[in-house]
């Protein structure tokens, strides 16, 4: 703890010195990105360790570090640097999705498939209904909805409900990695969040089309949106399968510098995917699923290569997410954001309870699984940005509330899930299994 604090102090002093070299708003092209990357990585890792002594997840430390060093507080990492580093996230998301896909062995999950489908399905529906209902009930008090008629308020409520119903595969995978968890709870939660993620993408596209029609935002017709959605989702899945084939061929024929190659693939899918209107997360998820389930290449081998490097990936990913949190925005909507987060948590916990009952989940797992569903991060933030961009009238106000709520969920969710994993006894089991081999 003392060593970490000392190192953190040195790193902070170094960046403070470097930032004092040039006037506040001046930044040398390029060097700022390298400086921010190095600082964020080192400071986040130290903060993660410091925070872990208080039995909090390391990723909470990463988030806190990014938040404090970011534009909202100390401004060591400026808004521009955050913009530069956000692209790190695309590669990281691809890598995380590939790992998540590689973890999901359908054959192994088959006994739990019913539980996963029921928990995922019921949770999403419950969250969607309860949150949308709550937003609708509060709509008279929300300035950006106050003047709308009931129909439009329903549409906006649905949109916000969909965004807030999103879960977080990245946080889930990061926590499972960090705690070294292995077992039915980890597998079920990972399966649920990945499935829910897919469902939310579908739902958001449909709701978005409705909202476009309702607010005449110049969007396409529902048929056009549906077609685009099909191309987006199935195109991404198909492209992911192609990537899976390429990775499998590479591993079989060349089998050299695999990890480097995987990084190249994630980079390509992150950057080219966006240009081709495909979802990098879905592409890499599909590639991981393909490798694990349809080839004789062990997804585990692939994951093992990537897992070892997950530490810098997660540290930078979550620190950048933390730096993107805006305190001034949160302050303006704190009450609403906390209220929405509480309602969301209640909805998800209730949904999970019903889902687990339908899925006949063993009693000892029922206390832990719901806490794995509370976190939010990248997808919810991405959808909030889309809301703001698509609907200039009310989008700004809605996205402000959404960002506030996501901020609460991002901070609180991982803490609850980590504690639940530790209490369940699954934490640390991965090392034990590996050690046993």
């Amino acid at each position, binding site marked *: 703890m003392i060593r970490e604090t000392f190192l953190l102090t040195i790193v902070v002093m170094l960046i403070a010195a*470097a930032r004092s*070299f040039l006037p506040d708003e001046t930044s040398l092209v*390029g060097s700022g990105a390298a400086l921010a990357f*190095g600082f964020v*990585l*080192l400071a986040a890792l130290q903060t993660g360790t410091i925070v872990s002594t208080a039995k909090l997840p390391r990723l909470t430390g990463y988030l806190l570090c990014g938040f404090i060093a970011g534009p909202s507080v100390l401004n060591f990492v400026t808004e521009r640097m955050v913009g530069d580093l956000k692209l*790190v996230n695309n590669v990281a998301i691809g890598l995380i999705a590939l790992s998540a896909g590689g973890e999901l062995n359908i054959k192994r999950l088959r006994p739990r498939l019913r539980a996963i489908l029921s928990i995922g399905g019921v949770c999403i529906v419950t969250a969607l209904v309860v949150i949308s209902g709550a937003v609708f009930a509060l709509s008279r008090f929300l300035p950006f909805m106050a003047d709308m008629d009931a129909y439009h308020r329903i549409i906006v409520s649905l949109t916000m409900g969909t965004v807030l119903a999103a879960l977080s595969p990245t946080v889930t995978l990061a926590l499972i990695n960090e705690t070294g968890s292995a077992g039915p709870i980890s597998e079920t939660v990972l399966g649920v969040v990945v499935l829910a993620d897919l469902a939310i993408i579908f739902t958001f596209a449909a709701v978005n089309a409705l909202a476009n029609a309702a607010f005449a935002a110049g969007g396409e017709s529902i048929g056009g949106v549906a077609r685009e959605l099909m191309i987006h989702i199935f195109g991404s899945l198909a492209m992911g399968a192609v990537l899976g084939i390429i990775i499998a061929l590479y591993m079989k024929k060349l089998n050299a*510098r695999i990890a480097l190659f995987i990084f190249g693939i994630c980079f390509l899918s992150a950057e080219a995917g966006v240009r081709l209107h495909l979802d990098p997360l879905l592409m890499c998820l599909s590639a991981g699923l393909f490798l694990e389930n349809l080839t004789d290449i062990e997804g585990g081998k692939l994951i093992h290569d990537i897992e070892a490097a997950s530490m810098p990936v997660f540290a930078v990913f979550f620190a950048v997410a933390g730096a993107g949190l805006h305190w001034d925005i949160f302050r303006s909507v704190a009450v609403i954001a906390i209220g929405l987060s509480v309602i969301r948590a209640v909805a998800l916990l209730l949904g999970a309870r019903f889902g687990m009952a339908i899925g006949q989940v063993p009693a000892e797992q029922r206390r832990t699984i719901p806490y794995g569903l509370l976190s939010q991060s990248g997808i919810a933030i991405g959808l909030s940005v889309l809301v703001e961009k698509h609907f200039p009238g009310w989008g700004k106000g809605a996205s402000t509330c959404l960002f506030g709520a996501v901020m609460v969920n991002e901070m609180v969710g991982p803490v609850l899930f980590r504690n639940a994993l530790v209490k369940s006894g699954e934490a640390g089991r991965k090392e034990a299994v590996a050690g046993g081999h």
Partner: protein
Amino acid sequence: MSVRRAQTVGVALAVLSFASRAMAGDPETPVSAAPLAAPSPQTGLLRVVLGLAAAFILAIVAAHPLVRRVERRLGLTVLLSSGLPFLAMGFVFRLPSVGVLTDDVVSDLRPALEFGLGWLGFVVGMHFDVRELDTLAPKTGNVVVAESVIPFVAAAVACALVLIGLDPAWGTTGGPSFHEQLYLSFHRSSLRDALALGACAAPAAPVAAAAIARSSGNAAAQLIHRVTLLNDVAGVVVIGLICAYFRPTDVLSAWKLPHIAWIFVTLGLGGVLGILTYILIRSARSQPEEMALLLGAIALSAGMSGYLAISPLVTFAIAGALLTNLPHKGMRALKETIATVERPLYLIFLLVAGALWDPRAWQGWVLALVFVLSRVGGKLMGAHLAKRVGPEDLPDPDTLGLALSAQSPIAIATIVSYVTIYKSADGSSGALPWLMTTCIGGAVLTEIVVQLIARARGGLSLERDMSRPSMVFSAPPPAVGIVPETPSLPPGAPLPRFPSDDHS
């Protein structure tokens, strides 16, 4: 093995992150007027993505052990064996008709460049393990000095004369007198540019040196190989002094320091970063964590160096030298890590160097010719002096001079570092674009000529023991990237011990 992979992944993360940053462009950069028949933004971006991805995959392929085996067999440096396609690709990608490496992309790739330079600087610094230096034959230092200083002076003086002669200001009418013009030209940038070229003249390529010197026996080959490792530092020292005395960002900077203070800032920064890296890797609980911390330390240091307009090559060399002399039981693994990733990094680095290079200016080729002649002349003169003042194991001066003539890849790193630091300060003016041609063209020309002469003399040893395991950073060195290649040991000879392992 998995740790090695993780390490590779870590570095790839950094490079790709910076590359992906380049994809986004600079949000604060005003959009320039669209050229005729410009591609749509999406097509353009996709082209950039695919172009860089192709380069990245090619770098992986070119780092394959097979390519390295071919290099060793032929006694070629990485530049001639697999570096040229990357330089060419960088140049082609830069062409407006291809439009992959546009001005914005090249400028945004600068962090990756700094990261790569830092990595190479680390390698240079890590050669300075005092425990290993203590094992050098007496008077080896004299050889290092002779083979560094004389080529440096010869190349710097010759290139300064040519640069002054090529100064476009000579043609202007109604200008100052001849003496004033000479003085102005010298002080404007010719002196600085000539010193930078001199810095590139000192380092020699170990792979070629070992191959040539092998004809004089193993002892000579080992000695020359060590001389080449130490030679690299001369260029780094000069570029450090240039950065201290010719500050490129004085107008912008909030720090107003005398030139001499910048030397202390450079030394201090390198020292602090070395100690920080040491404490960080000592605090690591696992090898992946060690790699993450090393990666962070290098990125932070590269960013700080870039921010302060100091060459990352210099700060990292200082940090590397410090780090290698501190006790750490994982030092050998760390060195192996650094060497493993070096080659793909160097190749990607050459790609960016190729993008900065414009070989179409004839002045660059004139300079290249002068540079090669003065440098090789300097090396030969240095060899004659070294033979007098150096250890007895040295080969005859002609063989020694020839062995040390092939240019080290560090020279290209040095000139790229120099050009990127002063490009923004100089704008589009001056001889900066020529210097790249001088250094790159000079390296290729020298290597071809040296190879031909050496083969004609029958002094190039192509017989290599490929089965022997490599030893990173010790003699003999590993088969990785620009880390020097190994002269063969006699069959059954024990491998040299790695000194720092004894101090853990």
